[in-house]
């Protein structure tokens, strides 16, 4: 074996080890969460965990249903606010603005992704919460406040992926549509958006993943009541905030129940990721 060959082999081995270390971290985390979280689910019954309405760990009552509903409500709210805004700015920046303006604006939207979530939470607490409380009623800490904050937080994800997939639509599509006599807006609505659809959907699913996993900002503005909210002005608790909120002093079964919360969150995020991968795979096939 020559020296070069030996070096090649060595480098290959090193890279293999590095590659597997990343995967093994994932494996360790998965095993750890499931090992810590599932025994208590078996002990008290999956049904009680998933559909129980009362979260009183000190009384051994571990119903996660309000938090599951809370997570889904807040995520849906974030999408209702973030997706139209993100999609609209993507359409504007790609189709209606001149290139120079787009080149200036896009980095600013992407900059939103770089703001730490605790800053979003703080701004929400200082300005949004009093605004909601004084103008709409309720305590201010609410589904609405968390949806707005999360909607802004997912904006960069939704926008930049939508921009990329709209740009990926071949110019011949646009030319053909305009040649047929369609206006610019008709072209966007009937040709470009359908063509870019799966890319946009993938962006939305990624944004959804971010919204459901966000913790700090939500804890600060959601109010964290462990009950199913009866209006969008009522406080809400998500799965992630349930873990972060009570982690500090939890011990024994309470601690295990928080790991069980993690298991459920893990499964939900896995499902979302799979959907995202499937949609982007379908886009590539075309």
């Amino acid at each position, binding site marked *: 074996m020559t020296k070069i060959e030996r070096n090649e082999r060595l480098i290959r081995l090193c890279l293999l080890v590095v590659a597997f270390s990343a995967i093994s971290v994932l494996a360790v985390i998965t095993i750890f969460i499931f090992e810590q979280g599932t025994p208590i689910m078996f002990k008290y019954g999956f049904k009680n965990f998933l559909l129980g309405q*009362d*979260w*009183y*760990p*000190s*009384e051994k009552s571990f119903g996660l249903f*309000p938090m599951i509903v809370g997570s889904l409500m807040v995520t849906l709210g974030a999408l209702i606010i973030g997706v139209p805004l993100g999609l609209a700015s993507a359409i504007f920046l790609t189709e209606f603005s001149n290139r120079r303006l787009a080149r200036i604006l896009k980095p600013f939207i992407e900059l939103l992704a770089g703001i730490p979530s605790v800053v979003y939470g703080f701004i929400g607490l200082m300005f949004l*919460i*009093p605004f909601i*409380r004084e103008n709409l009623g*309720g*305590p*201010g*800490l609410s589904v609405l406040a968390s949806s707005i904050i999360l909607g802004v937080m997912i904006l960069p994800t939704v926008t930049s992926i939508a921009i990329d997939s709209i740009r990926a639509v071949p110019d011949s599509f646009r030319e053909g549509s305009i040649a047929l006599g369609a206006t610019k807006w008709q072209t966007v609505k009937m040709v470009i958006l359908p063509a870019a659809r799966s890319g946009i959907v993938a962006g939305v699913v990624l944004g959804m993943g971010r919204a459901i996993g966000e913790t700090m900002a939500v*804890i600060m503005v959601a*109010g*964290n*009541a*462990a*009950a199913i909210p009866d209006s969008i002005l*009522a*406080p809400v*608790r998500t799965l992630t905030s349930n873990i*972060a*909120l*009570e982690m*500090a*002093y*939890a*011990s024994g079964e*309470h601690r295990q129940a928080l790991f069980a919360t993690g298991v459920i969150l893990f499964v939900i995020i896995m499902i979302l990721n799979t959907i995202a991968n499937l949609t982007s795979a379908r886009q590539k096939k075309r």
Partner: protein
Amino acid sequence: MTKIVISMTRIKILNLGLCLLLALGYVSCRPGKSSQRIVVAGSTSIQPFADKWAELFMEKRPETVVDVQGGGSSAGIQAVQTGAADIGMSSRALTEDEKELFEIEVARDGLAIIIHPENQLDNLQLDQVRSIFSGEITTWEILNGKAKNITVVVREEGSGTRAAFQELVMGRLRISKRAIVQDSNGTVREIVSRDPNAIGFISLGLVNKSVKTLSLDGIYPTEESIQNETYRLVRPFLFLTRAAPSGLVKEFIDFILSEEIQQLIKKEGLIPIKKNPGPRDDQDRTE
């Protein structure tokens, strides 16, 4: 055959090595444990204060180590029962079957019921507080005449402050699940200071001018009303030992009960105990 033999001898060598290691560990740990080092574990409400006391104690007695750990009141009680800790810390009174432990009260903490400073209300009865936090009373109307919904703010499950409130006010009733939950005394105070319809409870030492403290059954929480137990929302900070304290454990407890530390306790917002009671009186008191 030879293979088996080899593996047998290997196991023997391993065993021997393990025994040696254990023995070494035992020998090296023993002197530390009996004369120089004490382990204090329990309530996370007491822990930050105990850390400070331990630090000051170790400054005076550099040859000693006081190891302060958290875990919660129940874990602390268990640790002292099993001997895992020399001193257990509890911020709740002991239950009947825990009473065989020796208890020494080292400080007291009051719970203040706080509202927005612009709220006209000054006083609540204990059962009104209970009804508000259980979600039975939902508007301020019968309390101060304003037809606004009450924003109830509480601490999270597992916190010592919540446990104390549960025990002292709620009894068996549940705290409403519609209540807003925050994970520190500071954020509870922050929300109550901003929301004119809010009510919450925090540790008395952390009350400041941004909120208004309510009197309870006509009694306002002060050092005096807490020491003579007319104000009812008081929790003891207890140090627990398995037998009457002796040696370094006794020295540490005496140090905390000394005038110097009790003054410090007052500065940090806790209520010093009235005079230094011996452990004996103390056991009578908690009946």
